[in-house]
């Protein structure tokens, strides 16, 4: 039997709602479990979230559970296939969107972050498959125009091209959109904008169902604590704390951490452009993509 260190509020509600869950995907660090139309994640340690159960184990998750395993959760223990998990005593993680005063980062902070991400992308293989793609380029061109012209940013087809784009179980485009929409939907009211919501069915028709579910959580503000801290610190002007979180997320996945951080950064740059009109959004995008002419 292994111990659950923490269980998210949503994960507890979903898993104890009466139905049995089923494992659909398993990796070294996480297993994705569906209870009907809702998903939770069983993770090996790692950042807490409302939708995860964080397990205390040194063994890879893929050595403990398998796709197809059933999952039953009672108050004090869970069974995932043949794995017994002691849930009693686990911390109940609430997380969730918090309100804070928006204090958009200075241009210097945004540019510094852009350079940081670019330098880390430079040592990541296959990053160009996303950063250099036509779909991403078109999205950025449109986004920068919206920033310039103060337009309405909810046109579903603008985001569609990014869904499922790039390599990885959570494709780079999904991670980027997760970070972007998580940030955008935190503070749209302050900028006269409506939240942007990509329907789950729309997303799951274009990418892995699990990735679509994660993106859905992100746009609803249901984030893991690392992502939540990063965007909170960035939007509230706590530059040093933000930078620390950005670096802490960099090793996540193949480029998942970088892609999510990129979404957060580009959204912040977009909001800063609308607010200050300093040309910062273009400079940030140029600094990351390296395509100076196109985005200058």
């Amino acid at each position, binding site marked *: 039997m292994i111990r659950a260190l923490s269980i998210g509020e949503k994960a507890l509600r979903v898993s104890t709602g009466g139905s049995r869950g089923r494992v659909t995907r398993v990796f070294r660090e996480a297993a994705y479990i569906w209870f009907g139309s809702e998903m939770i994640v069983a993770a090996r340690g790692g950042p807490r979230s409302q939708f995860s159960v964080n397990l205390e184990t040194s063994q890879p998750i893929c050595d403990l559970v398998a796709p197809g395993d059933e999952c039953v959760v009672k108050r004090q223990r869970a069974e995932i296939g043949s794995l017994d998990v002691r849930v009693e005593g686990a911390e109940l993680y609430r997380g969730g969107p918090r309100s804070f005063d928006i204090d958009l980062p200075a241009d210097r902070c945004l*540019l*510094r972050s852009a*350079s*940081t991400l*670019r*330098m*880390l992308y430079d040592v990541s293989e296959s990053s160009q498959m996303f950063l250099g793609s036509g779909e991403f380029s078109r999205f950025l061109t449109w986004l920068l125009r919206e920033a310039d012209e103060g337009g309405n940013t909810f046109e579903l087809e603008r985001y569609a091209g990014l869904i499922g784009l790039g390599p990885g179980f959570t494709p780079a485009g999904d991670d980027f959109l997760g970070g972007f929409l998580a940030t955008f939907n935190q503070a749209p009211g302050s900028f006269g904008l409506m939240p942007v919501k990509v329907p789950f069915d729309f997303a799951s028709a274009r990418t892995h169902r699990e990735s679509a579910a994660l993106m859905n959580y992100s746009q609803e503000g249901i984030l893991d604590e690392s992502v939540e801290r990063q965007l909170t610190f960035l939007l509230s002007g706590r530059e040093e704390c933000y930078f620390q979180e950005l670096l802490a997320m*960099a*090793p996540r996945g193949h480029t998942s951490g970088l892609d999510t951080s990129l979404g957060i950064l580009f959204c912040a740059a977009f909001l800063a452009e609308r607010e200050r009109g300093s040309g910062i959004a273009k400079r940030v995008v140029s600094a990351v993509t390296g395509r100076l002419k196109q985005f200058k």
Partner: protein
Amino acid sequence: MTVTKDEVEEANRKSVDGMMESEPTWVSVGPAEKEIGGMKKTLLHAGPPIEWSSASGPLKGAIVGAILYEGWAETAKKAERLVEEGEVRLDCCHHRNAVGPMAGVISPSMPVYVLKDMKGGTKTFSNMNEGIGKVLRYGAYSSEVLQRLRWISDEFAPLLAAGIRKIVKERGGFAVKPMIAQALTMGDDCHNRYVAATSLFAKQIAPYLVGAGFTAREVAKALEFINANNFTTLNIGMAAAKAMTLAGHNVEKSSIVTVMARNGTDVGIWVSALGNRWFTAPAPVPKGIYFPGFSESDANPDIGDSAITETAGFGGFAMAAAPAIVSWVGGSVQDAIEITNRMYEITYTAHRYFQIPYLGFKGTPTGIDLRKVLKTGIAPTLNTGIAHRSAGVGQIGAGMVTLPMKVFEEAFRAYVDRYGT
């Protein structure tokens, strides 16, 4: 200033090529005051800068011992007062192109190995290895320790000096890189396992010591000392690594790490493009095997300049070449291989000349790239001796340690500030 990916790649190639192509050659032995210079009432120490008040037990012990050795004070208390009152200055070995294992204290009268990079011309230095256990570099300063230091200075060093003069005359010097390369194929890692390297060293210098004009007894005693101390060549290997990393240092735009060093309190690193600027964090305590009667609670945080070996692409990075080392530092043979394999993820290339037979003669992981450390979340892992945290006790074990990510984060921020805005 902003840099492109290609510019950084080119700078890193230049930095790491410099490291791999340097030719560190042992050329002489002499007192530190003469060879290094500028050491009036000054002691050099391992690691980043440290004030006496923050120094760890073993470093303080080694400093006291060095002061007694120099005759600047008659008692340990008086020696401590000299430092407290600023009459004896402390400086980093690295600031003088020198390196020292563990406390790494070098005093003016101590004999040092002098190496010259025959490619670039720079000189590097290291003190002489006393052996294991209760020795100065682990913070011991008993009369036995001082006596041994005096023997090294009065008899051992002059004999080596005479021998190396002959070698220089005959063939220009003692090339250290080939010795390291061969030792790596013979089961050494050339940080905590120097069995093969010291054997190769002894084999090569013995004929020159015999004909150096010293008595048979003196030569025999020296060779016995070398035979009993497999770490004899550690200090030479470290000075060679210092020469290699210096050859890759101060390259504009390069994100390659060129120094990793510990003073028993802090860990510090240099990055090629950022010059001699230290980035520091508290040093962790190594995990390993302890001598009977000791445990982790007795251990001092990590200490020594010997991490220069990993910085140059061998040492702990070459643990897959030295399976027997696990009996000294702990872990399993598989752990040793995994550590080497993991280090490939944070380095620029596989070494052109240092090869690991077990990995199909693949070159050792060389050229720690700051960006890769941050991207992967993998910090360098080294092996090391473990000192007792109190002065005067000495070595209590050996183990492995992973450097704190904080130093690389700080260095990366500075690199971004310099080249990303």
